[in-house]
């Protein structure tokens, strides 16, 4: 009897722990959604459950500032960065994973160390570079600076993945005299897509969420990306913050990401572990 009671107690404790974890993880986003549907005085009462439902915040966030532009900017930069990172990453990782040459290990460590650079440590040099190229306040300037963030781990994760593929895969093609470019396109690309989806998604998230470069290298409201736009939404004074608008904007930019992450959760986990744990 005593053992049985003990067992139930342990089970209850376990489920309580699970409940606390889920609540802590989900509640802030739930509360953001709830707030985004509230207007007027409802906004300034603390509600735990939905009390009112209005889409006004979702409409007004597009009116007060060029939020549509901001979303477009973020999408454009993120896709550009993903495409460039994958293109450069796949070819480079083929060389790093499948061809033996002197200095390969050193090269990999150097590439990995770039991903550890603090962004602030390159800020003034990057500013000068982007201004020098005439790309200040432009999406192309941002895309260039983001390559520093996405390219190293794209190369790293794709190399880790490609190294694990069997040698026989390319042998026949090489013996037939196929050029390395053909080998990549015909032999590796068809089996690489899971790894490319993973790294592409991680690069997309990194570019979509980036803040410091976007804040520093853009100037006008219509050139801002979404995180900067959200960070800069403010009211006439500190006590007139349009919290409803801020939460609506937050929900708009977060929902697609959450959907993506939940769909690809297994791939993301394997990508993160390949990038971090294998590192």
């Amino acid at each position, binding site marked *: 009897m005593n053992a049985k009671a003990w067992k139930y107690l342990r089970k209850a404790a376990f489920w309580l722990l699970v409940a606390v974890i889920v609540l802590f993880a989900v509640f802030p986003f739930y509360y953001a959604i709830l707030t985004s549907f509230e207007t007027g005085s409802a906004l300034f009462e603390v509600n735990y459950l939905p009390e009112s439902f209005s889409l006004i915040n979702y409409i007004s966030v597009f009116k007060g500032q060029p939020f549509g532009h901001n979303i477009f900017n973020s999408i454009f930069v993120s896709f550009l960065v993903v495409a460039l990172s994958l293109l450069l990453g796949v070819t480079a990782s083929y060389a790093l994973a499948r061809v033996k040459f002197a200095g390969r290990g050193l090269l990999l460590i150097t590439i990995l160390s770039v991903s*550890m650079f603090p962004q602030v440590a390159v*800020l003034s040099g*990057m500013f000068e570079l982007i201004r020098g190229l005439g790309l200040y306040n432009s999406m192309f300037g941002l895309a260039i600076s983001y390559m520093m963030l996405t390219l190293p781990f794209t190369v790293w994760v794709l190399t880790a993945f490609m190294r694990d593929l069997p040698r026989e895969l390319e042998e026949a093609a090489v013996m037939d005299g196929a050029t*390395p470019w053909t080998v990549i396109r015909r032999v590796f690309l068809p089996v690489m897509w899971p790894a490319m989806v993973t790294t592409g998604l991680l690069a997309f998230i990194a570019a979509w969420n980036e803040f410091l470069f976007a804040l520093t290298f853009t100037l006008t409201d219509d050139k801002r990306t*979404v995180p900067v736009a959200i960070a800069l939404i403010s009211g006439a004074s500190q006590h007139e913050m349009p919290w409803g608008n801020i939460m609506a904007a*937050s929900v708009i930019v977060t929902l697609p*990401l959450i959907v993506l992450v939940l769909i690809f959760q297994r791939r993301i986990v394997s990508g993160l572990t390949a990038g971090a744990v294998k590192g």
Partner: protein
Amino acid sequence: MAHASSLTRSRRRSAWIFLIPMLAILAVVAGWPLLRTFYFGFTDANLSDLSSYSFIGIENFYAVYDGEAYGLLIDPEWWQAVWNTLFFSVISVSLETALGMVVALVLNQNFRGRGLVRAAVLIPWAIPTIVSARMWNWMLHDQFGIINDMLMKLGILSAPIAWTASPDWAMSAVILVDVWKTTPFMALLILAALQMLPGDCYEAARVDGIHPVRVFFKVTLPLIKPAVMVAVIFRALDALRVFDVIYVLTPNNPQTTTMSVYARQQLVDFQEVGYGSAASTLLFVVIAFCIMAYIMIGRVRLDEGGH
């Protein structure tokens, strides 16, 4: 044989052709800006005109005029920022590791709805840092915030607290948001390590009737330690350069100004590119030193982390 070696040679050549574009881009977008920033640290460059500046040696770091010393190395605000950064990093990474371990151990159990729980845990990780800072900003609002409301209803607080504005609580608020946002990352990495463990030693421990807590400390922890140490490095690197959360959650608060916030403030807000770059350079040195110390003290083997 001669054929094979000429094949190898042509493969090597094409390997370099594939590598050069990637390396060139990295050199331009990472190597060059880093070197330029180091160099700017020894000049009096100003943001209004980056093309004219002069070399002033170490004056940004330390200089004496008329018997009075100036420079970053004796700037109390800089050292406050260094202290804030280290304090933030140590506390938040420790909390994230401990909580991540708990979440990973839960997710490693077999129970109904495990997939849903894992999906829920991933949500904070998927939310952009700026958005999570704003969400918590609202929840921690001094007048209308739900956190004050909860704590007062539970009788823990008698009066609301201005979490993000008060000097006593601002750092705690920042740590709370960071822990909420990045514990999932830690949990997933630890979970991956847990799932690679061999099952047979647990079988043996169960047969011998050893208490699960003892099994955790004697078997599980030593086995996953290398992976955890590597995960901690990645988190620590992130924490030491923290910027976004603080910029949005507690702007202009000396209690939470970190090295990155300080350096950007000098660089952009005060336009002092020389001085700000000197701070960036020092930040780079401090972070490199911390990570090297951690690797040496913890005897982390980077290549042993995975399989």
